[in-house]
């Protein structure tokens, strides 16, 4: 059933007679799934190393595109048939397809290309069922198949690499031409063994990673035959793991060092690592050691202390012993190494920190200079300040936020919004950029910086916002107008100052900028006057310094600026002081390389926008020079938290403790719903369109406009639906204080009555064929469903939070009664959850109930307040997305390929 190949294998087909034929200069390659994650980095390196042996690749839907390499582009086709039709001739197919596609890919390759001689399968986790078929197909058509789960073939003499990443990203570093052929069940060890051999002066001919699936299509018997037929290969290393009888009947005519690893695997009851490395009693590691010992005529394994070997070979159990074993075996044959040893295998510590602990000598090896080019990279690393994120497509991806699909809880920089809701507004604003929460001193400084710029009196942005409101726009539209005015020129001085502070202090050894008595004399001498100081006095700057003092806050950077101004007889402006504060907040994370320099430079801009957005939410008539919503700006700077200021802007009064806590929780809960949410998409799209690969050009304020324009009555304004629903239920109830348990209302009856009314309404609507009947807002959830009684864990969390404080909310209790009543009256088939949107509504309504009941605010104002609250909270998450996308994104990376768009007629 198979064509006759190499005569030594009469029972099955083998095409390769000698290792010289394994990876040749004449091989021409087509790569399947060439643009896949792994191939994208590996294939160009293989192509260049081999002098351009890849003629084409396939990737469904990408026909017509090209893979760029330094020696020319590789054309990409939808499938192999198209590549063949285009006139490409190749004899090798390399498979990078996902497991479910491997078998069909191989079948297609065999079907359309009669010239195929080799197929190299890189894919891991190919089902055994498919491997059976692949093997049989290759046999039927006379094709050598390598893998699966292999890393391909490389010939150091021919300078050819086919398939995977043998030798890594710099193959010539590891694949040094010599006389030893390498056969390895492990892909990584194929390269590692080549590197180890070089330390004893042995180079390689062919390196072959066989893979270690149950089916090894090109295995030890045929490799051994080809090794014997290759005159260049004087010896071989075989790295063998337990499982399978591939090596049982091998006979060697040339010396071999066999490394058999995996005695412990006898304890395994299931595969760990390589799928095929699960063995029975006859093919475990001990058995295999014995097979090879018998072949070599040795009675023990080789170790440096007990160098047992014959001229036929040696068995080692540790790959580090391979070079010595090879030298010992070859010495018995009078053969010398191929070249002078390259490096050695002694312990080389590249990075070390004992943290001041007095370790015994054997645990405290000296740090040595790494080999080139790593030594230069380490030297460069020591110079680098902050992190440099690799750029990638950030479409629908985020390094800032992540929603857990199981819990539906979003995390922002690793902190869940539930935990974030227990922090105040200013702390969350800082965390969105710095990734860590500030301490009390940091919060005090942040409050000064944020409150300094909140009063928008006389600002064109406030006039624009008011005009937008007058024109009937929603709050987000009005605030966009204000934010548009905070352009790059407005913050140029602050940004320059922030960057200059980093430059001055980066090598100063400063770790905690709240340290007392830090010696900045060198920085005082080096500082540039124009960057930090102003010729004329700045009232706002004085007020900031007074506010910092009033709050007892301290910062090395503020002290430095004050000393600089005193020394040079000049003045400090609020712009520079704001930069000092934001740099203070970011400093520890910057030094730990959690933040980039771009973030540091942009932080004053973000802060200015925070202040502008909150300030512009209050009307122009409520803002006067030095007075914001009836409170002196100075008082805000000296003693108010920014959470309180936001409450003031929104509701016109300073919150009491209970209100402040509820307001903080509310803002925390709505920080983010992950990168897929519309507001995040707007922010990310705005950044992508400016081109983050040149981060200087990103208009941070435009990012916020992107977020704001991507909210609206349906996204952000919809919290009002539940408020309106609750207003209808409680409007005539006589409720005076929603925070008092003694409200005197029978919530259960109210809920039951409503449920009955709703049931009747629903039946009637259905009978009339109206399936678009009104749904009850904020009950039920697409994930938290199906149990007899359902809970949204976020709602439960917040409920518990308030319960622990002894805070009562009648609207929340009503919602909980309502879901029970809906079940009992038969509206729902089980007890629906009260979802997190209801929590937001009940918190807001509780805050607004009394002014609403007193007629101070109407329904429209209530709706506007609900929407604006959402914007305040979501601003935190959007800041994180804007900064993240600026740091990691690529130009225009949020666009959707035309092929994935559809036309609707």
């Amino acid at each position, binding site marked *: 059933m198979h064509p006759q190949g190499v005569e030594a294998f009469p029972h099955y087909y083998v095409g390769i007679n000698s290792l010289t034929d394994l990876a040749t200069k004449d091989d021409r390659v087509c790569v399947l799934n060439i643009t896949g*994650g792994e191939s994208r980095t590996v294939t160009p390196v293989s192509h260049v190393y081999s002098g351009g042996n890849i003629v084409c690749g396939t990737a469904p839907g990408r026909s017509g595109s090209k893979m760029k390499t330094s020696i020319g582009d590789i054309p990409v086709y939808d499938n192999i048939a198209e590549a063949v039709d285009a006139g490409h001739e190749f004899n090798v197919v390399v498979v990078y397809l996902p497991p479910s596609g491997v078998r069909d890919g191989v079948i297609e390759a065999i079907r359309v290309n009669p010239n195929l001689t080799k197929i190299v399968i890189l*894919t891991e986790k190919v089902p*055994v069922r498919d491997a059976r078929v692949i093997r*049989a197909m290759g046999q039927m058509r006379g094709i050598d198949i390598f893998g699966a789960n292999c890393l391909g073939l490389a010939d150091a003499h021919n300078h050819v690499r086919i398939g995977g990443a043998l030798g890594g990203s710099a193959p010539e570093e590891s694949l040094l031409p010599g006389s030893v052929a390498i056969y390895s069940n492990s*892909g990584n060890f194929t390269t590692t063994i080549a590197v180890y051999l070089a330390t004893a002066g042995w180079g390689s001919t062919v390196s072959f990673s066989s893979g270690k699936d149950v089916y090894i299509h090109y295995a030890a018997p045929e490799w051994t035959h080809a090794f014997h037929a290759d005159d260049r290969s004087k010896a071989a290393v075989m790295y063998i793991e337990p*499982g399978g009888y591939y090596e049982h009947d091998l006979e060697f005519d040339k010396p071999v060092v066999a490394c058999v690893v995996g005695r412990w695997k006898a304890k395994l*009851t*299931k595969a760990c690592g390589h799928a095929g490395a699960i063995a029975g009693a006859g093919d475990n590691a001990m058995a295999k050691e014995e097979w090879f010992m018998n072949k070599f005529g040795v009675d023990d394994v080789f170790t440096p202390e007990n160098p047992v070997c014959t001229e036929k070979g040696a068995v080692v159990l540790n790959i580090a012993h391979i070079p010595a074993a090879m030298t010992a075996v070859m010495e018995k044959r009078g053969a010398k190494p191929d070249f002078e040893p390259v490096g050695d295998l002694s312990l080389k510590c590249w990075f070390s920190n*004992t943290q001041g602990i007095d370790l015994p000598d054997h645990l405290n090896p000296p740090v040595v200079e790494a080999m080139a080019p790593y030594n230069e990279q380490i030297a460069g690393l020591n110079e680098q300040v902050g992190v440099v994120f690799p750029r990638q497509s950030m479409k629908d991806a985020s390094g800032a936020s992540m929603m857990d699909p199981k819990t539906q809880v979003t995390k922002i920089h690793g902190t869940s919004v539930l935990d974030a809701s227990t922090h105040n507004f200013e702390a969350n604003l800082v965390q969105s950029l710095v990734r860590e929460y500030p301490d009390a001193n940091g919060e005090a400084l942040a409050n000064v910086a944020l409150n300094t710029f909140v009063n928008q009196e006389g600002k064109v942005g406030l006039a624009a916002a008011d005009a937008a409101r007058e024109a009937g726009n929603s709050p987000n539209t009005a605030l966009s107008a204000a934010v548009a005015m905070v352009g790059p020129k407005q913050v140029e001085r602050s940004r320059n100052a922030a960057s200059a502070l980093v430059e001055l202090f980066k090598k100063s050894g400063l770790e905690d900028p709240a340290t007392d008595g830090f010696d900045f004399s060198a920085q005082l001498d080096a500082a540039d006057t124009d960057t930090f100081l102003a010729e004329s006095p700045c009232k706002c700057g004085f007020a900031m310094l007074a506010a910092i003092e009033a709050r007892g806050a301290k910062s090395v950077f503020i002290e430095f600026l004050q000393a600089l101004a005193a020394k040079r007889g000049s003045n400090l402006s609020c712009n520079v002081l704001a930069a000092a504060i934001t740099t203070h907040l970011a400093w520890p994370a910057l030094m730990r390389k959690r933040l980039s320099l771009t973030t540091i430079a942009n932080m004053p801009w973000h802060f200015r926008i925070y202040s502008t957005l909150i300030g512009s939410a209050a009307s122009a008539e409520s803002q006067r020079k030095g007075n914001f919503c009836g409170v002196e700006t100075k008082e805000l700077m000296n003693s108010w938290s920014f959470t309180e200021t936001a409450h003031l802007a929104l509701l016109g009064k300073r919150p009491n403790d209970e209100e402040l806590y509820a307001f903080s929780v509310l803002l925390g809960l709505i920080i983010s719903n992950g990168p897929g949410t519309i507001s995040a998409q707007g922010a990310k799209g705005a950044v992508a369109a400016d081109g983050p690969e040149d981060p200087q050009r990103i208009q941070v304020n435009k990012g916020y406009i992107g977020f704001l324009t991507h909210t609206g009555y349906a996204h952000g304004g919809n919290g009002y639906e539940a408020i309106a629903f609750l207003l209808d239920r409680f409007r005539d109830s006589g409720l005076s204080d929603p925070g008092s348990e003694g409200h005197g209302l029978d919530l259960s009856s109210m809920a039951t009555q409503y449920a009955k009314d709703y049931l009747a309404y629903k039946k009637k609507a259905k009978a009339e064929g109206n399936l678009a009947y009104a749904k009850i807002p904020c009950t039920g959830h697409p994930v938290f469903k199906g149990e007899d009684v359902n809970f949204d864990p976020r709602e439960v969390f917040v409920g518990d939070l308030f319960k622990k404080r002894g805070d009562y909310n009648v609207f929340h209790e009503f919602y909980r009664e309502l879901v029970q009543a809906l079940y009992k009256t038969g509206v729902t088939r089980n007890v629906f959850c009260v979802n997190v949107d209801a929590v937001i509504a009940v918190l807001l309504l509780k805050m607004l109930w009394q002014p609403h009941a007193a007629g101070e605010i109407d329904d429209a104002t209530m709706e506007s307040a609900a929407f604006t609250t959402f914007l305040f909270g979501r601003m935190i998450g959007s800041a994180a997305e804007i900064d993240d996308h600026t740091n990691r994104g690529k130009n225009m990376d949020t666009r959707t390929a035309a092929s994935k768009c559809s036309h609707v007629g």
Partner: protein
Amino acid sequence: MQITGMYWGSKLLKYVDFPTSEVLGPEATNDEIKGLIERHGEVFIKPMFKGGVGKKGKAGLLGRAKDISTATKEKARLYFAEHFHNNTYSKAEGVTFEGAVPAEYEIYFSITDSTEYRAPMITLTHHGGMDIEELPPEKIARIPFDPLTGLKGFVISNALRKLGAPKELVSPLVQNLPKLWDLFHNYGMTTLELNPIRMQSNKKGRLVPVACDFKCAFDGDDPNANRLGLPEDLDTSSYSDFELEVNSLRTYQGQSDVFVINEEGTISAMTFGGGANALVTELLGDAATISSDFGGNPPYAKMHDISRIVYKYWLEQSNVLFIIGGKANNTDIYETFRAMADALRDHFNKYGPQPLYVVVGRGGPNLVRGMGYMQDTLDSLGLPYQMFGFDSAMSEVVNYAQAADEWMKNGGREIVAKSMGIA
């Protein structure tokens, strides 16, 4: 996943219409058991173990009953039977009642993949009902066959002729055994074994093969097994909670294979690459908590998840966090190290700091950036560490990690805790 026993075996064999003994599960009522005894004269009571558990009969874990009272007693004896085989402890969860099948012949039959022939292979003998290893080779037929054509009647017929099997066996086995290929190949199995198949006479006096015990293993990488709709917890006994949690992350990019070595271990090794996995696990021995292979260039999010789970289960008891691999060919060291470092910081934030010694040995793309990120993180956490280049012998780095573990055991842990201010 492995399955043994006729409770599930009979259900699977029904997919291909292969005759089986009549089986009742642990939920059977006394009336049903009585009925079974009346129909078959005798029942066998066998404990139900999850996963692949062999040699039960030899351990006396088999009951026989010809009346309901004996059957009930045997049920009570075997319902929670304990069994130790191949270094593995198992506890039964229920029993099956299987109608006796009187027969003259007992057949052993299996399908597996042979690494000698690199093809599927049947193993067949009519001297079944005993351990196949105990039979001389000439009494066993091992025949490979072409998976493209499948297992055909002529393969069975030739095998039986080679064995010199009685002629009356040939026709019923040729008719029925090829059905098993459909079950084996189309539902993602790697092993299927029926031992014994008892050859029972039907009313016409012809022999009919009846499967009386069943064993199979499924390929974890083959989604076809899901088509059987087997309960997910059928084989959970062989996976720890930790392994299950990591396995839930399995995707084709990036290995996430783990195996618990010693629940009391003190070195937790994040190992990259199948080869490194074999070498490191062997050298660490029982000092290791887990054996792992996280190679294959896992993306950041997956590596972060894996690290989070590993730390959650094993870090508290560990003296040494050991990150080890060879010179990676394609795994991005920066991405994987950043994920491990971030997860470590998150772990300390969530569970509080703990004394730990960190040892790293690695090579590959973006190596220095990755080590630099790890360095910054460990410095900020105040943990002592050493990172070795890939030109250090991996085994020497393992020795170093063991030495660090010894030092931590002998007072070092307290010293590190003190230096971190948490003593």
